[in-house]
Structure formats: C-alpha cells, structure tokens
C-alpha cells in the first residue's frame, strides 16, 4: 500500500464556528493505481490533494504514507518525504517565469543535491521523452498552454516520484491537448507511477481505474471504471 487516510477531518475556525473542509475521509491507495477525484466546485478536491501531498495539514485522523505516519512527522521530515516521492501538476502549470524550460525541469533535482552531470542526463532524457528538446531554451511565456503543461509534468516526473498529484491538469487546455495529457498519464501509470488527478471531465476521469466523488468535504461514492 502506498498511502492510507483514516477518519481524517480538516476544518477552519471562522468567527468561533468550525467550517469543515474535509469530513471523515477514509482512503487507501495501492502502488500503481490511477485515481480520479471529481466533485462540484468548493467540494474540497484541492484541499484533499494538498493534504495527500503534505503541503497542507489536517486536524484529526491518521495519514500513513509508505511506512511513515505523516501526522507524527516533523515539518522537515515531511518535506523530505514529499520531495522524494511526490510530484505535483497544477491547472495553472506554475512554471517559474524567469527560468527556461530546461531549468524549470531541472529545479527539483537542485533541491535534492543531484550531481550536475547526472542532472544533465536526467533532464535530457525527460526532454527527449516529451519531444521538447527544441524548446529547452524557451521561457514559459513563449510556449502554448499544452506545452507548458508538458513541461509541468516533466518537472513533476524528473525526480522519479512514486506518486503524481494533478489538480485539474487539463482545466486550462483544449480537448485535444487534454487527451494528450491523459494518454501520457495512462502511459506513466503503466510504467508503475501512481496517479491521483482532480478533474471536472467525465471523459478524462474515465482514464483512471476508479473515481472518488466528493461533496461538501465528504467522500460521496467510489466508482470503479
């Protein structure tokens, strides 16, 4: 098992009242799974993804990732954990404007102290694989949305994570570009990468093995595709 959430609650206190963002979440994810999360806007999809990605904390319940109890870890250890095992893909791509395609992809390796020669090889592989060798010296603003998202995914994959978390990765793309991304995810998944994606599109959700439906911070239903 890759990760497990048990009776997880997350809330914020506004004017003395608790507003629940996540309510009693129970979820098990096996290594190699491909999962979609769906639900209306404001239902807590991004919140859930951020908690799984350890970017955000929670208030009650348990979270185990590999053999670690995330809720018991210190900030630093948690960072170490997600840095090593998790890659993020965003709807707005979130590339660094001042860096070229090459440098954007390279960035995670810099924070993991990978040697320069090794970095070169890894980035070259990734550029090759995504067919963007010719664009490596361009800046994000010089790319189309689809291309930017490819770079975003390449960056998420560069450190060879076990888990990819993608928050509406196709939300800003046209349907043809979206399809390409979904096919890429399917391919990655076949290679053994676990993927959890948030999506609004039934069609894209169907690429995954199962879909989780959220409503008001609660898991409404699991559907196996």
């Amino acid at each position: 098992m890759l990760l497990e959430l048990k009776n997880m609650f997350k809330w914020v206190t506004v004017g003395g009242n608790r507003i629940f963002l996540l309510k009693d979440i129970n979820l098990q994810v096996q290594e190699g799974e491909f999962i979609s999360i769906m639900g209306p806007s404001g239902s807590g999809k991004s919140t859930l993804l951020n908690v799984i990605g350890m970017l955000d904390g929670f208030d009650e319940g348990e979270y185990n990732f590999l053999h670690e109890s995330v809720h018991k870890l210190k900030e630093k250890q948690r960072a170490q954990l997600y840095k090593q095992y998790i890659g993020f893909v965003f709807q707005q791509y979130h590339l660094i404007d001042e860096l070229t395609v090459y440098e954007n992809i390279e960035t995670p390796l810099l924070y993991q102290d990978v040697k320069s020669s090794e970095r070169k090889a890894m980035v070259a592989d990734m550029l090759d694989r995504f067919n963007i060798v010719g664009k490596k010296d361009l800046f994000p603003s010089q790319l189309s949305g689809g291309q930017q998202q490819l770079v975003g995914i390449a960056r998420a994959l560069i450190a060879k994570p076990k888990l990819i978390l993608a928050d509406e990765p196709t939300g800003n793309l046209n349907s043809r570009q979206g399809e390409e991304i979904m096919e890429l995810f399917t391919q990655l998944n076949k290679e053994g990468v676990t993927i959890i994606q948030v999506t609004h599109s039934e069609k894209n959700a169907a690429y995954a093995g199962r879909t989780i439906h959220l409503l008001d911070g609660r898991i409404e239903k699991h559907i196996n595709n």
Partner: protein
Amino acid sequence: MLKTYFKITLRNLWRNKLYSFINIAGLAMGIAAFILILQYVSFEKSVNGFHENIATTYRLLNEDPKGQTWPQVEPGWAQKAKDRFPEIQAYCRFEEGVGQGIVRRNAENAEPFRETNVGYAEGNFFEFFSFNVLEGSAAAFKKPNVVFLSTATAKKYFGKAEPVGQSLTLYNQFGKANYTVSGVYDIPVNSDIRYDMVFSLETLSNPANLNDNDWAQLDNLSSQYIHTYFRINETADYKKLEQKLTTLRNELKKDKDGLVFRLQPFANVHLPASFSDTYQTSGNLKYVYILSIIAILILAIAWFNYINLSTANALKRANEVGVRKVVGASRGSLVLQFLGESMLVNLISFGLALLIVRLLQPLFNTIIEKELTFTSLLSTPAWVAGLVLLIIGSLLSGAYTAYSLSGFNPVETLKGKLVKTTKAVVLRKSLVVFQFSISIGLLLATAFIYRQLNYMQNKNLGVNTDQLLVIRGPQVDKDSTYKMRRTAFINAIAQQSFVKDYSLSGSVPGNGYNFATSGFSQPGSRKGDELKSFSFALIDDRYLNTYQIGLAAGRTFTQAETMVDWNDNDKVLMNEKAIEELGFKSPEEALNTKVQWDERKLQVIGVVKNYHHIGLQKAIDPIIFYPQSNSAYFTVRLQTDRIQDNVAQLETMFKSYFRNNPFEYFFANDNFNKQYISEQQYSKLFTTASVWAIIIACLGLFGLATYTVEARTKEIGVRKVLGANVLTIARLLSKDFLQLVFIAFVIAVPVVWYAMYRWLENFAYKVQLSWWVFAAAGIVAIGIALLTISFQAIKAAIANPVKSLRTQ
C-alpha cells in the same frame, strides 16, 4: 545551484527594469555618498600619521584660565625645558606667519612673489619630522641663511634649473636677507605642517638679522609666536612633564599672566581624541562626525528602499516561492537564494557607486575643500570599517527580505491569495517615515543654514563695502624715499576720475584689528574696568568717509593729526560699544573727555557709530581708533563699472612708485564674506546631502507607488466602472503616502529645531527659527512626494478600466 540563482537573479532584474533601476540607482547613490564621505573621514584621520615618531611627540600649548588654548608659545622655553628635564630628548620650533613677506630670486629683474605660506624652522626640522628631503641633506638646514623649498615652489622660482645652490632674497619685517637654497622637500597632502618654503630659524639667532624686532629673540620668554614640539622618552609620563613645565614657567616668568602649559599628543593635533578634548586642533571633529552620520543615514535610506521594494515585490515573487517549495525547496535554500540576490544587487550598485564617485569627486572636493582621491580612502584602516558596514548593511537588508519572502505558505500563494501580513505593512510604513524624516530634517537644516548665511552676508554692517578695492601696502624698499613715494602715489590716486574716495589704514573690515589691549579707564570707571580689552584700529583722516561709517558725535581726525608720532598723539575715536564699556551714558557725555590708557591720557574727539569690523559670529567689539598714516592697506572706492581697467591702471601706478613689490588687491566685500567660509561649507554640504537624500527617498517612494498602483489595478477598475473620477482615484492612491510624509515632517521638526537652536548659539547675530520656514519646508517636502506619487496615481486613474479588469 549558485549559477542558476545568479541567472535567475539577473533575469529577474532585467524583467523588472523599473524596480531594478530604482533599487540599484538608490543603492549606488547611497554607497557613492558613503564612499566619498569615508574618503574624507579617512583622510582626516590620516593627517600627520606618517610621522614615524608621532607617538612620542607632543605639541606645547598655552592655556588661559578660561581653558582657551593656543600653540604659539614663547621661543625661550624649549631649550630651558630640555636643559631641565632629561625625559625631553629633542625639540623642534617653527613659526607660521611671522616670516611672511616678498621673495624673489637674487638676480636682476627677477619677479617678486608674496609668500604667505612660509616660515622659519629649527635646524633639525627635517630630522625631527618625517618629511622627505629629495635634494640636499636634512643636516644642511642647521646653518643660518639657508632655505629649503617644496618641489612646487622650486619649480615656481627656478623652472627646470637646479635649485640647490641658488640664492633667494626675502623681504619681510626682519628686513632684507639672502638665503641659499640647500634642499628640496616633499610634504604629503595629509600633513598639517606644510610650507611652500622654510627658512632656517638659526638665521634669527643673529641679532643683526632681527632688524630691531627684539620680540623675536630666540631665547625670549615674553612674546608668543613660535610652535614648539617635544620628543620625549617612551617611558615618560607626559602629564607629569606638563606640570613640571608649568612650574618652570611660573618660576621664570616675571609677569604673572595666569597661563599654564599643556602638552598635546601630536596624534591629536589634527583631530581631538574626543569631544571632551578641547585643545586647539587644525581639523574639525564635529564636521567629521556630522559627515559620518549623514553618510550612514543616506545609506540607510537606500537600504530601506531595497527592503521596501523587495517586500512589496513579494506579490510577484510569491508564486515562484510557492512552486519552489512544492518541488522541494527548503526555507534555508530560499533564504540563501534571496540573500544571494541582494548581495548581487548590492555588488552591482557598488560598481556603479565607484563610477559615481569618480564622476562626483571634483564636485565633492569643492564642497569639502580638500584634494581627496580614491587613494585617500586607503590611507587609514577606516575603509575596512566602511566595507564591514557595507557588507553588514546589505546582509541585513537582504536577510530581512529573504526571511519574509521565504516564509510564504505554498498552498496560499499558489491559490494566488497573498496574505498581506500587517507586520510587513507596518514595517514598510515605518521605513518610509524614517526615510522622509531624514530627508526633511536635512532639508530644514539646509534652509536655516542658508538663511543664517544669507542674513550674515546681507545684514547692514554699518559700513559700505561695495566697490571698495583694497591694495596691500608695499613691504620692499621702505627706505628714506618711501614716505615721499607714498605721498606721490596717494596724490596720483586722488587725481583719477574713477576714484571716489581713498584711505590709508592699518586694518580693514574683515581682516581683524591691529591689536587688542587692556588698561583703559576714565574718571567714572569702576574697579576692574581697566581689565576690559579694547581692539585697536589704526586709521587715517579719510577712513570713516571712505568706508561710509557714521559718527554718533564729534568729528574724525584731521590730516595733521594722523601725522603725529605714535607716542605724542593724545586724540582718539571710540565706537559706541567702547564708550559704553567705559561707563559713559551717551556719546555726548564721552565727547572731549580724557580716558586713561595706563599712564597716558587720550582725548575722545569723536564717537563712531557701531559697525561690524569682523564677521557676525561675534558681537561688535569695543574699538579704539588711533590716528596713523599707516600704509598696510590702501583702500579705494571705485566709481565706475569698468573695474578691470581701473585695476590695471592702479597696478601701473603702484608699480611705478613701489618697484619690486607685488601688486596685491582684494575687494572689501569679498574679503569680509571670507569670514563665512565655514558656514558656506556647511550650507553647500547640507544642500548636497539633502538633495541626495531626497532623490533616493523619492526613488523609493516612486517604486512603492508603482507597486501599490499595480496591486490595486482591479480595485481602481471597479471603482471607475462604478463612476469614480480621476481626481478621487488619484487622491485615494496618494493619501496613504502623504500621511506618512506628514508624520515624517512632524518627527523631523523638533529634532531640527533643537539642532539648529544649538548651532545658532555660535552666532551673536542670527535668524529666528521661524515657524514659517518649517511650514515652507514641509510644504516643499509634501509637494515633492506628491509629485512623485501622482505620476503613477494619475496614470492608473486615467487608465481604461475595461482593460485592467480583463487582465485580472
């Protein structure tokens, strides 16, 4: 890693050109001011430091009961002290001013020059002090009738010819004497003792060379005219020696004048050890401190710009921080990145600052009236302290920025929600207030210094110094025909149509008095009055007319009265202040009374209206005008505007009667205003400093305004759609900033009021600290700030709202 940081920093700087420009320009200006001032401080600290034995060398000072000190002492003490106290290894005496005169090559038709920066010095002068003797040997100076020249002076007199072995003739109060040039020396710029030429003091040990000036005898203990330096044993306690010297003085000195001896370490001759050290110095510690403080304040303003603009820029950087954290950046690595950025910005600014320093060096040198170069900076370890301060400052300003930027929560920032921390906003506002307090403070100080200077230069002096040309009287060839030639010259002047008035006098306004003395009383005086000091001015019958000085009662001298011998004269004029000091109630009461001057009786034939004979720093002195046909100065009141021609004519006339004398002249008003050089220097310094500070602070304000407008683009768009007009929006955007500038003003006012109150205490006649000057400066500051902000505010206010809303 470092390389990528470097790259991203440069790209960031390039992308945000305006922001980078403001940051770098501001910092460069701040650092440049800092370096320039550091040069000055370093130079001042280095003065005299090159003397090898500075640590064991002391200057002898006289101190009066009021604590006033001066370095001119009686020449006889040095040898007597050395004979008596074994801890004194050596002494060296030299004088400044006494030896002034005219020098010419000992050759037919050689050009005469007036030399003011010359003097007599002890035979061991070039051994006692560490001056570089380039030609000749230091020992050669021990002989009488020997002169050493500075390299520049040697060139002036002999051009390319070999100076050593040549002969110069010196005409001064000791008569005419020939000197053999036996050495050429070089004195570093950072030396207090600097002569154009030095004559061997040994010459004056021969009574034949004194020309009846008995006061100058080298073993006399009564006339204070020579500087004396002692070299003492390393182990000796100079404070003890000081007491022994005073005891010696009391033992040998007949007239008890209440003076004591002080020994001043040579190291403190230029700058005192601290403000509590009140001995006379050649440098100005206060000036050094004021400049240092200004340097640091200006630098602080620039760093605050950096902090303010970088944290305001956080809006743009937040996303990057978020992404970096998500892909695994630790806070530490982000801090390092931002710190590196600030270092780079500081480094670029430093480079630019060096360029600015090069460009502004001449301007700065005129303000400071020193010949500073970049190497002045390296003359003392002060530059190390400066560098450390620069590094610490840039680290701190960078560290704060790094700390606040690296602290963002990635979930928040990636959502595009930047939490505005009130702490950061409060800090930013405080820094702006601080920057403007300093700028406004400097502006206010400038206004008052300028007003005081202006007041002094324009106040009615009671004497009219306009269009008055003053010619220095001749000194060479004062033989038996001199009086006749002088009369002829005066008559020639009187016949010129452009001459309105003329006069002969021993002193002129702006150049002090002939001397000051006590011992005056009148029948009605109280005991103690005879101790009051009166200043003496030697004038002829035309002086009051020529200078247009009024009479309160009586008459001025007649021509015959000015011809009477000094000791036979029994008539004087006094100014109103003098008769008041003597206890007379009115000019009429004083008129025709006889006042006692020791054993002599002098009849007051007229009372002169008070006028300013010296600068307005000092209150009007009691003056006694003594009739003399003294020819130290010829004053001519010109009638026309063709001054160039007139001066040329006067020169021809002067030369025809006084061959071998240089024709030297000055204008009485320029000469009078020379007394305000120090105030003029302060005025220039503060003007420059305040302009500099205001520019840097406004750069920052402009940057902040730009960001605020950017951050509020959407709000502005919505407001416009809802019907707000340009004025309301511009006002909305400017209001916050103007509030800060106003607070800064309120803070600056009392500080400046106090500082200026203290400064104005130096002046007997001074301007008021009027409220309207404060108000005017406040309005100017707010006006400048408003101008700075309104550019961005108005641009935002007139922008098309549809456009700004769409891009959001």
